[in-house]
């Protein structure tokens, strides 16, 4: 059942990209300013949850595009794998952070690093988990 409000629906359309963008921003700046994978993930999940409330379950599922459970698996794998490069490449302990600074066109100097990969893993897991919970709860409710 959908909430028959044009205003809410439109607001949802408008806020979803805004929130997703905001969440990515929170994720990427987290190492330097408040934010990070967890906070970013929660905001992204909130964005989809907003879709759920302003439209309906199908719309939210479509907006997410992937099955949230897949996000969990991928995110976890990513986070665990981020432990390995230092150990394999340099024989360091697991989770020793590796930094690969590189210069990209347009963006300038970007520091790709295992903590970043780890944080992206966190981001995905948070989105996947929270949405698995929220979406299936909503489904159960119907």
């Amino acid at each position: 059942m959908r909430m028959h409000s044009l205003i809410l629906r439109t607001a949802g359309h408008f806020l979803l990209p805004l929130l997703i963008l905001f969440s990515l921003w929170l994720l990427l700046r987290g190492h330097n300013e408040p934010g990070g994978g967890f906070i970013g993930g929660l905001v992204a999940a909130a964005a989809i949850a907003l879709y759920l409330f302003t439209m309906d379950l199908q719309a939210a599922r479509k907006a997410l595009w992937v099955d949230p459970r897949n996000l969990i698996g991928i995110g976890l794998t990513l986070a665990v794998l981020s432990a390995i490069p230092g150990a394999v490449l340099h024989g360091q302990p697991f989770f020793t952070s590796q930094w690969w600074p590189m210069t990209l066109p347009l963006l300038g100097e970007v520091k790709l690093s295992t903590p970043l990969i780890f944080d992206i893993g966190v981001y995905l897991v948070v989105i996947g988990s929270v949405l698995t919970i929220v979406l299936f709860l909503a489904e159960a409710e119907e």
Partner: protein
Amino acid sequence: MEFLMASLVGILFASALYMMLRRSIVKLVIGLVLLSNAANLLIFTASGLGSGQPPLIPPGADVPVGAVSDPLAQALILTAIVIGFGVLAFAVVLIHRAYEVVGADDMDQMKDTDT
């Protein structure tokens, strides 16, 4: 300040416990929320409530300027909040399901498994 915070923590713990001692499973959930908040605030208080700056390094610097509040305690609390959230999510749905299966919001109808 510590006294006030400690009192708040105490009140939260007491409220949490009181709610957990009710027969209603919905109240149990509320108790769990309170419990988690209580424990987090306790860590926060125990690690010292200095009025230092947030643990952020200004752009261009290597270390923060002046005293900052304990970043480790904050990291711990963050982790604890998230864990508490996950656990709570599980508990909430569990209670939802228990209510569905048992058909009552009453702990006293959930004691068949014990003896």
